[in-house]
């Protein structure tokens, strides 16, 4: 227990966290994992965990217990990766995945932000529902709707090929040249850099529109072919 870091390794995947365990006894490892989660509640809250247990063999009740303990901490266990076919079968019996290669939709997103520059965009290929939040250091492109209660914060532009009904903040680090475009632009809140749009008087136009800063005010213009 003295060195938790050597017992478990945690890595971010595009759809959750991958926890790799070493060969230490199971009780020790699960205790280490839980104490790590307790120590960093803010980080783990709402997370989806995939557990790589190597060649250890886990019994049903051990798996069930861990899942319940995680569930108490608002962490969901979605996959068990194991080299043992018996353990894989046990995991499948409990409705857990045994592979992580398949892309899975997640509610919270974490991204590799090391190589983001002014030409990097995050492509979101689904409707963002209430409670979803996307924060990205480049541009964000959504193919789908952004429903009320969903939120996008981007350092660059935000393009929505769909209805924009949620909250959006473009140029979040102060880029006043950022724009927000949507096929149907009716956000609950729209902000570019430090300037917010007055959205209370807006009506549905049924046309694609773009919001941007002009004379320190956010204005909205209908997209015209050839502009």
């Amino acid at each position, binding site marked *: 227990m003295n060195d938790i870091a050597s017992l478990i390794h945690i890595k971010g995947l595009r759809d959750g966290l991958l926890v790799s365990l070493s060969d230490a006894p199971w009780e020790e490892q699960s205790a280490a994992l839980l104490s790590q989660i307790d120590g960093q509640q803010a980080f783990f809250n709402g997370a989806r965990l995939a557990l790589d247990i190597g060649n250890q063999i886990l019994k049903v009740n051990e798996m069930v217990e861990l*899942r319940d303990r995680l569930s*108490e901490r608002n962490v969901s266990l979605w996959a068990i990766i194991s080299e043992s076919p018996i353990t894989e079968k046990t995991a499948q019996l409990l409705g857990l995945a045994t592979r992580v290669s398949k892309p899975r939709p997640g509610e919270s997103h974490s991204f590799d932000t090391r190589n983001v520059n002014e030409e990097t965009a995050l492509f979101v290929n689904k409707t963002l529902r209430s*409670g979803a939040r996307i924060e990205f250091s480049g541009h964000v492109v959504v193919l789908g709707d952004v429903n009320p209660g969903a939120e996008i914060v981007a350092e660059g532009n935000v393009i929505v090929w769909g209805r924009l009904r949620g909250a959006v903040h473009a140029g979040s680090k102060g880029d006043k040249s950022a724009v927000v475009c949507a096929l149907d632009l009716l956000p609950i809140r729209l902000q570019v850099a430090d300037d917010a749009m007055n959205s209370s008087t807006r009506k549905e136009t049924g046309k694609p529109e773009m919001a941007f800063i002009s004379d320190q005010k956010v204005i909205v213009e209908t997209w015209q072919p050839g502009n």
Partner: protein
Amino acid sequence: MTAQVITISSGKGGVGKTTTVANLAVALAADGVKVVCLDGDIGLRNLDVVMGLENRIVYDIVDVIEGRCKLRQAMIRDKHLPELYLIPAAQTRDKNAVSPSDMQRICNELRPDFDFVLIDSPAGIERGFRNAIAPADRVLVVTNPEVSAVRDADRVIGILEAEEKRSTALIINRLNQALVKQHDMLSPEDVLDLLGIPLIGIVPEDESVIVSSNRGTPVAQDTKSRAGLAFRNIAKRIKGEEIPFLDMEKQAGLWDRLQKMTGRRS
């Protein structure tokens, strides 16, 4: 026989989850299929009250989980329908007495003996809700045609998508056609447009629902009630029958548009 486990959920409270569970259960059982209802709202149980079975409770779901009784002992048979059972929630405990795996275990034990297991989910998106959706093969999301209920339904659908519960369908409850006409209530199209999941039924606002809930005889047994008819139709659709939507829902060509929308995304 392998039961299909259907969880009825909503996010927001008071939209009619418990009423829906009770009515679908009664309608299904009256059609001759074997149904068991599970009250997932530990600590605030009321499915037993709506079904009129409160005074027969001896054991509850927590007693089963903690091994004080057998599953069979906690199952209460309905007064009128011999194929309908209820497993009540505990009133004196809270949601932490139950875990997602407990729910899964109980449902797996029920599956061989029933056609449908209906789970009444508590409001909210916390532990109790997670418990209720864990064993579900299918989730029916109940909403009212009002902004706050639809917002919460959207959140719930987002969570279900993340949990890979693919088979979700929507019930719009307490629709008041007169208010929709005056543009004072969201129309079914508005709701479907935002939520983008298939529709399985629209239940009109109907005072007889409240009256019959208080009496402990779900309105689905009342052949005169329009809401009762709507619930019976949903029950048939759950069984896989093709049932046209109520006349009321057909007005102004709505039915055609609904069909397009419900077929739009799977």
